[in-house]
């Protein structure tokens, strides 16, 4: 029924009777991607290992069954896990939450090239950092924050790396990676955040320009991780997404609803399973070197409305016979949240607009998103006609 599934995982699921309020999708057991859960030999315990897509093994891992090939681009994963909050702290302009779940598999992208990161044997955690602005409650989905995990007693470094920017159905945009823990015990987790590279607009202008550090104490105990619930989802493989997790993190990662966005609504187009909400602000926000109109495109996942960062996006706008083609720059704004935008001095409702995607969103994907947001046809609309 669950080919390739790790029997020890099934055993502890059977034993685990504790239901937790928080859960997160994506641990590698029992999904329809058979074979991905097999543990390769020779890899670091609790770590991860890549399988290049495009190799025979990679393709087999990804699409082993007819069912998988017919799967909707965004689909419900086969299982979900709980998560545990390590701590939450305000540093500089950020609120930073540190949490973890069971070791997860995921996919990292460089261009169109996807690399499948499998779970290896051994004990460890999938560490997750979630970052937002506590004033306007917008998640900051950008960055590759360096993390160092140390044994609290000895000070020995257990792991040092940059966390991947990632997207998961229940955690939304976060920074994460798998970390092997050699022993049970207390650890310190030190995180550093670089200045935000995206344009900072409106009240956000100049706000996220300093590097900040955050530190957490983490207790690693297998009896805790063993109680992180895993359940299999009956709707696995169907179109949809697991709900954003209810946590004590104030924003759940979803972008503001269409009606809450500032400016005139130009319409919504879809491509690559993503939604692109088009807004025209009559006056460019502070931080844009223009007093004319500003085109903002809010690229988001279906269902949970999560932002899709690290994408090449270009708009061509035809107004009164004149065509202007501009790349849209990633930006953060208190009301728009994360979006792509550029000033278009002559843009007006009724104009024809085409959106082209260059690089697909270069954010690591948890299960349910691994086949989505990769290939996009050009998208056109007439502003304001929807």
């Amino acid at each position, binding site marked *: 029924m669950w080919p390739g599934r790790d029997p020890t995982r099934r055993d502890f699921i059977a034993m685990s009777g504790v239901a937790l309020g928080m859960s997160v999708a994506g641990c590698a057991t029992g999904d329809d991607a058979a074979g991905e859960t097999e543990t390769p030999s020779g890899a670091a315990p609790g770590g991860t290992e890549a399988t290049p897509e495009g190799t025979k093994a990679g393709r087999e891992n990804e699409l082993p069954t007819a069912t998988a090939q017919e799967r909707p681009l965004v689909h419900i994963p086969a299982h979900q896990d709980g998560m545990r909050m390590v701590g939450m702290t305000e540093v500089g302009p950020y609120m930073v939450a540190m949490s973890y779940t069971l070791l997860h598999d995921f996919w990292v992208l*460089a*261009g169109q090239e996807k690399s499948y990161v499998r779970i290896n044997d051994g004990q460890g955690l999938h560490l997750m950092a979630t970052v937002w602005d506590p004033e306007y409650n917008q998640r900051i989905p*950008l960055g590759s924050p360096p993390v160092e995990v140390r044994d609290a007693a000895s000070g020995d470094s257990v792991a040092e790396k*940059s966390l991947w920017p990632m997207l998961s159905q229940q955690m939304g945009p976060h920074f994460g990676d798998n970390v092997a823990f050699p022993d049970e015990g207390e650890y310190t987790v030190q995180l550093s955040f670089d200045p935000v590279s995206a344009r900072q607009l409106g009240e956000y202008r100049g706000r996220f320009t300093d590097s900040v550090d955050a530190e957490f104490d983490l207790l690693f105990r297998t009896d805790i991780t063993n109680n992180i619930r895993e359940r299999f989802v009956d709707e696995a493989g169907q179109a949809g997404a697991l709900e954003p997790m209810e946590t004590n993190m104030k924003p759940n990662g979803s972008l503001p609803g269409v009606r809450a966005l500032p400016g005139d609504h130009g319409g919504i187009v879809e491509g690559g399973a993503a939604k692109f909400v088009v807004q025209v602000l009559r006056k460019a926000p502070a931080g844009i070197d223009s007093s004319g109109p500003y085109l903002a495109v809010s690229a988001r996942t279906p269902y949970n409305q999560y932002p899709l960062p690290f994408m*090449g996006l270009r708009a061509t706008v035809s107004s009164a016979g004149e065509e202007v083609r501009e*790349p849209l720059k990633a930006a953060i704004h208190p009301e728009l949240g994360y979006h792509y935008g550029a000033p278009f001095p002559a843009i007006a409702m009724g104009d024809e607009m085409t959106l082209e995607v260059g690089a697909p969103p270069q954010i690591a994907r948890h299960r349910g998103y691994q086949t989505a947001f990769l290939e996009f046809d050009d998208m056109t609309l007439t502003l304001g006609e929807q």
Partner: protein
Amino acid sequence: MTDGDRNLTRREALRAAVAVGGSAGLAACLNLESQPTETGEANRNTDRPDGTESAAELPNRQHAWNEFSRTDKHGNPVLARHHVLLLANYVGDGPVDDVDRKQAANAFRELEETYRWASDGLLFTVGYSPAYFDRYDEPLSESVDLPRPAALAPFEDPSFDTPDLLVHLASDRASAVLEAKQALFGELETANGSEVTETIDGIVELVDRRTGFIGPGLPAEHDDVDGVPDGAVPKDAPLFMGFKSGFVENQATENSVTITEGPFAGGTTQHLSLLRTELDQWYNQDSREQRVAKMFSATHAAEDLVEGVGDNLGDSSLVSETGVGDRVSDDAFEEGVVGHAQKLARARDENGDPRLLRRDFATVDDGRTGVHFLSLQESIADFIQTRSAMNGTDVANVGGVGTKNNNGILQYITTVRRGNYLLPPRSKRSFPRPS
């Protein structure tokens, strides 16, 4: 690999001996080197090169190493395999007096007489920091661009090296770099069969000693340290990240990095940084194609231009030939990734040539993998400009690229230390006056 296990073990031991240093390290090295080998490494007792007798035989440029080094089959100069960096302070206050200047000059000269000036003998440079020149009332000649070290990216926070001088010892023989250090500091009575009579003992104080290595096989033999997964580094990789570098077409020439005017004409500037590498994700999560895209360019990955560690590239990383240096922003937007070499291709001088002559090497100092990134350039401004191109700040918000995300190899390296030095011409190698 043609090396047998026994020989790999021997090479590992030689590298370890350099890291250990001291008389124990040297003794271990000499013992290992006197054993017969299959790889042609010379036997100390029969063909260890003798020193250079006449100072006139040697170039006035301290950095003129290439003609005294091996070249590979593609014509790329091959950097010596073993390296020691000695950071030291002059023991006196204020300017260096002439007696000490003469003593050091004699010590450096005696090193040349002890070993043949060649990568299979000993090559070395002596450089001086801005802090050293602060000892003098008069300023450093304006013909030299030598600022104090500084952070060179918004995402780095390095410590700064400010010793008076930096001695860089290089040799294919582990024993030579070890023994030369001990000879220089008066810890030996004989070196390479010659009596040690001139030393810098008593006039300088060693503040740090760093070691490293470069060459096919050496990194793979030292993957038992933090920062790299065991067994992940390709067996024939010269550096920990698994690819060749230092292609002659992508290096500045010794000529072009030479200061041409003023009292230090014939000299050059030297930047030394310590970069820590964290390669778990690099080897365990990125695919080979992704590694090629991040190290070279998306074009290199898509067109499969790099085989293995990149020996097939010959004498060029192909960043010019493919034109990828002109497509950094376009690739960030369309491909979602820009390559390290691709970004560096933009840092060319007015003639379109690279600004840096890299002489960097790998290290496992303190039990962690890293790179002693040592480069020579006419001015430190050349280094800053090249590093700026590598930072890719201009594409940190273009398309799929972030501050570090898919921005070359920035995600995997951390700058820990930086220092700047002047390598005066050989005639002014000993405690130069500032003008």
